[in-house]
């Protein structure tokens, strides 16, 4: 089985004056293509730090992060940008849509930063419309974020995450701000994406969310405490 991502003895240190905070202290994990992983753990255990590195927003202090065969730790800032643009789709807890843009424009943003094709072609436009329809917002294309509910905003974010057809979807507490009914809708969408073959890594506190994943990783003090099929769909 091919690996979408691989972490080898990953460490991340933050220097605060003479103090050094070790947010990650040697994390190793494999993420096969098509995997669906929930990362859990108490606050401050290093979940977000790990996700940022997986998302090429940050570089590890030590160890290696191999993404699609490239060592991300040695890449330049521009190369990291390109990785984020083509291979990663982000979904945030607070949606992070651009306030002055419409739904359609928000979905298009990652297309503007493609290295090779910065112009939005008719086919691109079509793809955005399809994605908007897929997440159930085909009739809200001209709305601005403030005109949408939280669940609708997160759907826009999902469509945006998919627009450049990335291999990995990263989500940091995507349902943290949503009620349970909406949470279910969003999680159904993510499951559907996983069924299409996309690798999904999701940070969450909720067991109801973590249960939807195929595999759970529990973090503690910058280390992986447990890794495996800890929860199943039908409870336990």
């Amino acid at each position: 089985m091919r690996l979408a991502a691989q972490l080898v003895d990953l460490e991340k240190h933050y220097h605060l004056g003479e103090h050094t905070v070790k947010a990650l202290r040697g994390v190793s994990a494999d993420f096969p293509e098509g995997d669906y992983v929930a990362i859990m753990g108490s606050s401050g255990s290093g979940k977000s730090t790990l996700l940022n590195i997986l998302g090429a927003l940050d570089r590890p202090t030590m160890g290696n992060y191999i993404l699609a065969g490239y060592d991300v730790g040695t890449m330049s800032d521009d190369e990291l940008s390109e990785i984020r643009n083509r291979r990663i789709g982000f979904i945030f807890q607070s949606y992070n849509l651009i306030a002055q843009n419409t739904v359609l424009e928000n979905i298009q943003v990652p297309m503007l930063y493609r290295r090779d094709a910065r112009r939005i072609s008719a086919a691109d436009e079509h793809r955005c419309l399809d994605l908007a329809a897929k997440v159930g917002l085909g009739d809200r294309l001209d709305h601005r974020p403030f005109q949408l509910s939280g669940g609708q905003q997160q759907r826009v974010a999902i469509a945006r995450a998919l627009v450049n057809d990335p291999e990995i979807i990263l989500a940091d507490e995507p349902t943290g701000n949503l009620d349970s009914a909406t949470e279910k809708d969003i999680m159904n969408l993510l499951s559907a994406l996983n069924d299409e073959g996309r690798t999904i890594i999701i940070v969450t506190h909720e067991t109801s969310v973590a249960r939807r994943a195929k595999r759970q990783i529990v973090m503690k003090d910058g280390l992986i405490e447990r890794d495996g099929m800890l929860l199943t769909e039908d409870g336990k």
Partner: protein
Amino acid sequence: MLPFGNTFRAINLAFKSLLLHKLRSGLTMLGIVFGVFSVIAMLAIGEGASAQAQQQVLALGATNIIVLSVKPPADSAQAGGGGSRGRSFGLQYGLLRSDYRLLRGLPSIVGAVPIREIFSETRYLQKTPNARVVGCTSQYPDMNHLTIQQGRFIADADEDKLLNVCVLGAGIAAELFPFDDPLGKAVQIKSYRYEVIGITQERTASAAIGGSMSGQDYNKDIYIPLKTFQVRIGDRVATAQAGSFSAEQVELNQITIQVREQKDVLPTAEVIKESLTRTHGTKKDWDVIVPLELLRQADQIRQIFNIVLGSIAAISLVVGGIGIMNIMLATVTERTREIGIRRALGARRSDIVQQFLTETIVLAGAGGLIGVLMGLATPLAFEGIQWIVEHFVLDAATQNSPLSKMFTDMHPKINWFSLPVAFGISVGIGIIFGIYPARAAAYMDPIEALRHE
């Protein structure tokens, strides 16, 4: 094709962001608007003043050399030259008819007009205006760019026959003859009457330039043949002043000399000076004025003015630029989150730089464009200022002074070259003052930026 679409989209995006805060963008733009406007306006006014000065000097004739009689200082030993021979003779000074014959013979000279003038009361019926009575020859209008509106100018034949004829300036003609047709009527000057044979076209006064020429209003002149002047009025002019009687004896007040080409002007002026020094000795009762030289001086003064005015305008542009930078820094802070989002979605640092730099350039460019449009209205605005000055600042007496005339007759001339330059500078200001905020945005840590708020 590709970069064009890109640029267009970037500009479109910038417009959108700026329109999100219309008032703020508008106020920020004002600095550049007024900076660009003042650059164009100041250059236009400088250009107008210089064009005016040039016109005045050219009116004196670029190929002309003006030789003047100068009254020597009263206490100088030479000045008494004639005066010591008795009151009846009066003070004798200035250019002589023999000087004229001498200078006329110099090489490279194509024309010379001797002039004798006095200020005198003139009369027609009840009207008795004061006028400058000028004795001159037929070449006078050519050299002084005078045109005849009615009748004809003095001819050589008038001089030979010592005819009592005169040509009126447009102004004095209107004063003497408010109702009648002046042609054929007789105007009294001193003890003789002169038949009006022509009237000159109105001509704007040539104001004092560099302080060496007194302002000359050709409209109040009355021209008579030089020989007639000599015979009827004479060289000697007596004036009763504060009870004492004084007299001056002057043969010619001025000789206007014309050379063939501009390059002959300066050498010929030197020769003239040498000749007059030889004949007049140490008696410095003459002066040589070279309009071409004045033209050069006027041009230098214009350059100085342009530099000074341009610098002031440049300062206001820089102030405008600082205003833009200030606002852009605030904008960058305000949009930290957006920057983080864009970076997470794949924007490179250069993309962020481009985004914010485009915004400053659009802001400055739009300001520059408005400034250029306002600059185009400079002549109109200046007319308004002239109207205010004429109606509320100047009183009747000062209105006719050469200085205020210079102001009220001045027309700003927009230097078309200054429009694209001023616009280009405003865009440049946008780039210079936009780079720092744009880089500040691009070098933010994307994770920090995403966490902002």
